[in-house]
C-alpha cells in the first residue's frame, strides 16, 4: 500500500507538471519520476533473488538467526557490543553480496532517524562528564558523556534491529518461509493464507492501477482536503477493489476446494528444503556467539 501511495503522489506531481504544457517539462518530469522511483524515502521491502551462502540457508535457520540477533541487541547494554553487532550485521550483508552501498541506500531513513535519536539525547540528557560546550549568544550547546553514550546505544539498537529485519526479508523468499513453517507444524490452512496473499499482491497492484486509469478516463479528480473528499476517495477506490477481490476469492475458493484443499488434516509438500549440517552449524555458532558477547560485555 505504501508503494501505491507513493505512485499516486508521483502521478499527481506529473499531472501538475504536465499542466505547464511544454515538451521540455514532460521530459524533465519523466526524469524526475525515475529518480523518484530509484531513491524513495521509504525503501521498498522485498526479496532480492541471489545464490549466495546466505540465500541458500534454510529459511528457518535465517529466522532463528534473526531472533538470536534481535535478542542479543536487547540484552547487550554496552554501546561497544552494539558496534560489534553492527559489524556482524554488515558482514551478513557482505556475505549476501549486498554491500555497504545497498545498506546505506535502503536504510537511509533508519540512519537519519538514528541521528535524530542522538540529537534528542544530546539536547535533553545532561549527565556525566561535560565533553563539549559551544557558547552561543542566547543558548549555549552542551554535550554530556551520558547523552552521547545513550544516543549511540539507542541509535545502534534501532539500526541493528531494522537492518537485521531488512536483511532477513531481502534474502528470504516469503513463500519458502511459509512452506517451511507449515512443515514445522503450523496448520497448512494458515500457511496458505500467507501464500495466496503473496500470490495476489501483484494482481491487486495491477487492479489498483486499472482503477486509477478508470478514474482518469472518467475525469474523476479529488481536489482539496476534506472529509467529503476522503469519503469519496474511499468509495471510488476501495469499493471497486473490494468487489473485485471478493469475486477473485470466490473463484479461488472453487479452484482450491475442487483440488481437495482441506480434505485431510495434513498434506504432503513437494517443496521441501532439508536442514543441512551447515544450517545446524550456523544456528549453534550464532547462539554461542551471542552468549559469549553477552558474558564479555
Amino acid at each position, binding site marked *: 500500500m505504501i508503494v501505491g501511495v507513493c505512485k499516486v503522489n508521483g502521478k499527481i506531481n506529473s499531472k501538475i507538471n504536465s499542466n505547464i504544457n511544454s515538451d521540455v517539462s514532460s521530459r524533465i518530469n519523466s526524469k524526475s519520476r525515475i529518480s523518484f522511483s530509484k531513491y524513495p524515502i521509504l525503501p521498498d521491502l522485498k526479496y532480492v533473488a541471489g545464490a549466495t551462502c546466505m540465500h541458500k540457508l534454510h529459511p528457518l535457520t535465517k529466522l532463528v538467526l534473526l531472533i538470536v540477533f534481535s535478542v542479543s541487541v536487547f540484552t547487550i547494554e554496552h554501546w561497544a557490543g552494539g558496534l560489534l553487532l553492527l559489524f556482524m550485521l554488515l558482514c551478513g550483508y557482505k556475505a549476501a553480496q549486498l554491500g555497504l552501498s545497498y545498506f546505506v541506500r535502503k536504510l537511509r531513513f533508519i540512519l537519519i532517524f538514528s541521528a535524530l535519536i542522538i540529537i534528542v539525547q544530546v539536547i535533553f540528557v545532561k549527565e556525566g562528564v561535560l565533553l563539549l560546550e559551544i557558547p552561543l549568544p542566547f543558548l549555549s550547546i552542551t554535550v554530556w558523556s551520558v547523552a552521547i553514550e545513550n544516543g549511540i546505544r539507542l541509535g545502534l539498537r534501532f539500526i541493528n534491529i531494522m537492518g537485521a529485519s531488512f536483511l532477513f526479508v531481502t534474502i528470504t523468499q516469503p513463500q519458502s518461509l511459509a512452506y517451511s513453517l507449515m512443515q514445522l507444524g503450523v496448520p497448512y490452512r494458515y500457511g496458505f493464507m500467507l501464500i495466496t496473499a503473496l500470490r495476489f499482491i501483484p494482481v491487486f497492484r495491477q*487492479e489498483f492501477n486499472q482503477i486509477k486509469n478508470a478514474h482518469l478516463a472518467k475525469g474523476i479528480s479529488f481536489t482539496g482536503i476534506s472529509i467529503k473528499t476522503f469519503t469519496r476517495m474511499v468509495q471510488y477506490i476501495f469499493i471497486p477493489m473490494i468487489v473485485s477481490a471478493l469475486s477473485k476469492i470466490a473463484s479461488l475458493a472453487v479452484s482450491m476446494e475442487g483440488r481437495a484443499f482441506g480434505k485431510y488434516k495434513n498434506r*504432503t509438500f513437494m517443496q521441501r528444503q532439508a536442514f543441512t549440517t551447515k544450517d545446524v552449524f550456523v544456528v549453534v555458532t550464532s547462539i554461542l556467539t551471542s552468549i559469549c558477547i553477552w558474558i564479555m560485555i
Partner: protein
Amino acid sequence: MGNNTYMRNSHANINANMNNGSINIVDLNFTYYGSDAPALKNINLDIKQGEFVVITGMSGCGKSTLAMAIAGYIKNGTQGELQGKIIINERNINHCHIEQLAGEVGIVLQEPEAQLCTFTVREEIAFGPENLCLSDKDINSRIYTAANRVGIERLLDNDINQLSGGEKQRVAIAAMLAMEPTILILDEPTANLDPDGALDVITTLQKIKQTTQHTIIVIEHRIEQFLPLADRIVLMEQGQIVYDGSSLPGYTYYQYLFNKTDKKIRECLQVHKQYLKQRLAANTTDMLQVTNVNINIDQKRILSDISFNIKAGELVAVMGKNGCGKTSMFLSLLGIYQTETGSIILDGKDLSGVATEQRAKDIGLTFQNPNHQIFEKSVYQEMILPYSFLRDEPVDEELINQLLKELSLDGYKDTPPYNLSQGEKKRLILGEVMAYNPKLLLLDEPMAGQDKQHVDFLLQMLFTYCNQGNVCLVACHQPQVVFEYFDRVLFFDDGKLLYDGKPAAVFELLTENGYSGYDSRCM
C-alpha cells in the same frame, strides 16, 4: 496404434471398475434466494463416460449454475432451494462435501488468474495431489502426466506471473487433471483469452479427449470452435434444456435460436455504410491523426513508431495478441501514458502537452472489466458520473433517461450497479461514456465473454454513434465480428502497427503470414 487402443481400453476398464465418469441428473430444479424465477427448471440429463458435451445458451440461461451444481458447489439451502437429484458415478452428491468430490469432478473457471494459488507451474500442479497426501513419487508422476497432456512440460519451472493468459488457463486445466477427475467441467474456458490462447486451450482439450477417457463438459457462448470436438450439444434457455442431441443438428438449432442475425443490425450496418460512403466522398479531413508515436514505460519500449489516420465516422477494430500494445495505445491517446516522441492530433487540435483531464472531455475510454469502473451507489448516479466531472453544463435528465431506456436499464435506476449482471454492467459503462458524447470513443474489449445479443446491441449503438461524425476504436478478439461489421482493422504485434486496412485485406495478409484464426473462409 493397436497398443494404444489396448491401453486406452485397459484404462477405461480400470475407470469402469472404480468410478465411471457418468452423470445422471433427475428433475433438477434450483431457485436462488431472492429470485422469483428458477435458475434451473426440470433438468434431466444423462451423460456417459468419455463423452464431450458442450452446453450453450444466452447469458443468464442457467448454464453456469448447472455446471456448478454438477461440480457440487450448489447445495440445497446454501444459495437457494434445490430439488431433484444429481447422481455422479452412481452416487447422489446432494449431501457430499466438495472436498469429497475432488478427484471425481474438476471444474475450470473463466478467469485463469484467480484459479492459481501458488508461484510456479510445478507447485500449482502439485497442489492438488499434495492435498491428497500422496507420496513424492506419485505427485511427480502426476505432474508429468498432467503437464504432458496439456503440453506445458517446458513451462514447469516458470513463474506463474509471467505466463500468458492461454498458458495460465492450460496450467489451471493441468492442475485439475492432476487430480485425475473422471469428469472435467470447463466454464467458458476461452472467454478471457485472445484467439491464440483460445486455440491453445481448444487443441489441449482435443488432445485430452483423444488420449484419455475423461468425461468433458464445456460451457460456452460461442460454440463454433468446439463443434469438431463435441459428441453432443445441449442448448439451454431460461433455465430449461431445449435441445439435447448430436452436434450438427444442434448447431443448426443454435444458429436459429441464438445466432440469428437481427434484421435491425443489418439495417444499421447498411445505414452506416451509406453514411460512410457519403462522408468519404466529401473528402473531409482526418478526425484522428497519430504520427510516429513512441512510448516507453520503465525504459522499455511499449509502442514504437505508430502512425495512422482515421476519418470521422469510421468504426475501427484494434486487434492483436494480448500484450501487443492495444491497451497501451488507448492509454497514450488519453495521455495516461506519456508519448516519448510523435504527435496525436484530434479534430485539428494537437494533443501534445494537453493534460488527461482535458483530453477526457473529447476522448471516452472504457476498460474490459466493468467492476473496476463502477463507483457510484445507483445506476442513475453512475450514469451521470463522468458527465458531471467533464461537462460544465447541468445534466440533461431527459437525455439520460432516454439513454437508459435504449440500454434497457430504465428499470434499474435506483439499483446499486454492483447488483447488475455482467452484460448489464457493460451496457452501463458504455452508456456512461455515450452520455457525455466524446468525439473519440475507445473501447477495450467490450465483447469479451458476451453473447451474440449483447454484441449485436453494442454494434448498433456504435453504428449510431459513428454516424454522428464520431470515431470509435474497439479492441477486439473476434475476427468473425470484425470481418462482418467493422470498417477497418489496425493489427498490432509486439508494439508495432503491423497492418492497417479493410478487414478482408488485413485478414488475408495475416493468414498468408501464418497467423492462425483469421482465415475469412472459415467465417
